[in-house]
């Protein structure tokens, strides 16, 4: 499935990370609904053939129990990668993730470790409706003990997933469905991208956009559009929300003095609120305008393509936000 150009899709990059880590470490197991047949998007395609159905294990539709089972396996030496087919279904496994996985290292006074990866896929596309489209990362940012990665490119998807699998903590790895078929280059070598290191994707002087997942690409599109209007915008992808590379973001804000934080999740209580709070605390004296947030309206994700389009934030809102920061609204 790799392309003649040397480019691969985001979902193939995920598949490659899983394949490489399973080959590297026999303790890596995959658990989830339909994973042995590749899953609905092909993320685990071919892995059962390569590593057997003991290690690439189909589970019943019992998210809570499967999550807890993965935790219990992680405590004694396995390194499970659980696939939650849609992040919306993670609600069924919240107790295991929040009350057990995230807390056991701390509560045991360091006796236990939970080397667990939870892959889940988010994003409103195709009119799939409110139970197959949400962006829920903010809930987990509120849980000490969890790490959270949100890759926006094939190279980051492969590199962050490999880092997550090698990490001794529970890592929630959130993929965006709209990016699955996006092409990108993969670096040579193992290409591990450490958690907690933001990427500056475009340098600029007038404003900084901090964006995650699909919004990274919308931010780059907005930056190109604004560039044509003579406004140079810096674009930063934190890549992991916990740990968060605040330093890179703050360095940018000190330079530009203006910042927009963008995510596809609904606005209220989203990660934008936390980032805005942390940025203003670290760089208040450098800010020339209030920090703006771009997110979805505070509503469930609607099914109708016309409503979904109205729900999902993108380039247009980002361009407007940057212009308003510059008094050009």
């Amino acid at each position, binding site marked *: 499935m790799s392309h003649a150009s040397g480019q691969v899709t985001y979902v193939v990059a995920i598949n490659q990370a899983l394949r490489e880590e399973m080959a590297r470490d026999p303790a890596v197991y995959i658990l989830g609904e339909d994973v042995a047949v590749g899953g609905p998007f092909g993320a685990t395609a071919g892995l059962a053939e390569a590593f057997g159905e003991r290690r690439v294990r189909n589970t019943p539709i019992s998210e809570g*129990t499967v999550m807890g089972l993965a935790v*219990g396996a992680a*405590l004694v030496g396995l390194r499970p990668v659980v696939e939650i087919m849609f992040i919306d279904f993670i609600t069924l496994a919240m107790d295991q993730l929040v009350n057990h996985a995230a*807390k056991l290292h701390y509560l*045991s006074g360091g*006796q236990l470790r939970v080397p667990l990866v939870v892959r889940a896929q988010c994003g409103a596309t195709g009119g799939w409706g409110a139970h197959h489209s949400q962006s829920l990362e903010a809930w987990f940012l509120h849980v000490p003990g969890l790490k959270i990665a949100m890759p926006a490119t094939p190279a980051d998807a492969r590199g962050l997933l490999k880092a997550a699998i090698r990490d001794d*903590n529970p890592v929630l790895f959130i993929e965006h469905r709209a990016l699955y078929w996006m092409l990108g280059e993969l670096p040579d070598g193992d290409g591990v991208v450490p958690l907690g290191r933001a990427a500056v994707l475009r340098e600029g002087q007038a404003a900084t956009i901090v964006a995650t997942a699909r919004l990274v690409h919308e931010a780059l599109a907005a930056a190109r559009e604004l560039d044509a209007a003579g406004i140079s915008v810096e674009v930063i992808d934190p890549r992991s929300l916990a740990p968060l590379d605040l330093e890179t973001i703050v360095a940018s804000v000190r330079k530009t003095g203006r910042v927009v934080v963008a995510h596809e999740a609904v606005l209220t209580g989203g990660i934008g609120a936390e980032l805005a709070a942390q940025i203003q605390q670290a760089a208040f004296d450098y800010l020339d305008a209030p920090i703006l947030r771009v997110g979805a309206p505070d509503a469930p994700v609607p099914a109708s393509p016309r409503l979904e389009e109205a729900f999902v934030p993108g380039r247009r809102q980002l361009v407007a936000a940057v212009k308003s920061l510059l008094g050009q609204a």
Partner: protein
Amino acid sequence: MLDADTARQLLATMWTIRAFEERLTELVASKQFAGLVHVAIGQEATATGVCSVLRADDYVYASHRPDGHFIARGADLARMMAELAGRASGYCRGKGGSMHLVAVERGLLGATGIVGGNIPLALGTALACQERGAGQVVVVFFGDGAANAGYFHESLNLASLWRLPVVLVCENNGYAEFTPLSAHTLVERLATHAERFQIPTATIDGNDVLAVRDAAAEAVSRARTGGGPTFLECLTYRLSGHYVGDPQRYRQAAELAEWRERDPIARFQRYLEATGLAASVDAAALEQAARARVEAAVRFALESPWPEPEEVATQVWAAPREEGA
């Protein structure tokens, strides 16, 4: 046939659990210890009988009444007591407390504050054991209240489907918190839930330590030899309240009195007398020794330092291991 050494061990364990929890109750009730503490006085035979047939490399998950499970598994009384006292010398450095006790050195991977919440964890540990192929077995204790949790039913299905080496021990004490079982379910014998999933079951007198031990031995041997899970329903009763401080308005004196007659410790001592084993098992001495060990643990706990306030946000994330460690 029961030998004197085993009899002595079983009785000593039950007395240690009883002494530990009686003393713990006093310490919590008098506010010398903080915390929401659930004891299981009257249920000592289940933990004792089950753990008596385990191997050192097996794993155990405890319920939210974890003391008996930990003591029967040989956890250090002083480090347990220190944890319950919130001290730095506790198993979890004071971060866990009663409902989050862990003692990895004894294969005790944790109690839980979520009823039924660690049944799935036990399955996962059992999966790892199955993959390791060394014949290790996992035991998880939970109460009758857990039998109405979603995890319980999902876990029965998965344990059965994958033939996991796990023994599911339901300590059916007739009450889910303050409410009798009959108010929660029409299912009279909880083992029937497991039967639906084709899991072998046994419903036994949970206050008869030997009955528990025999049933557990069969279950553990089945799990060890690839025969998959077993569900043990141990019928028992907690003579103590749901938590330390529970006014217990929900039950009748007559019921309590009836179960006091079936106290598992007194009952085992009567059995030893009836079989002549009492001649070589000095029950009074065992009780006294247990109470002395518990007192030493209490002293250790109360003399131990508190954790430093700086520890509040340490160990939130595990640090990377040294290469090759």
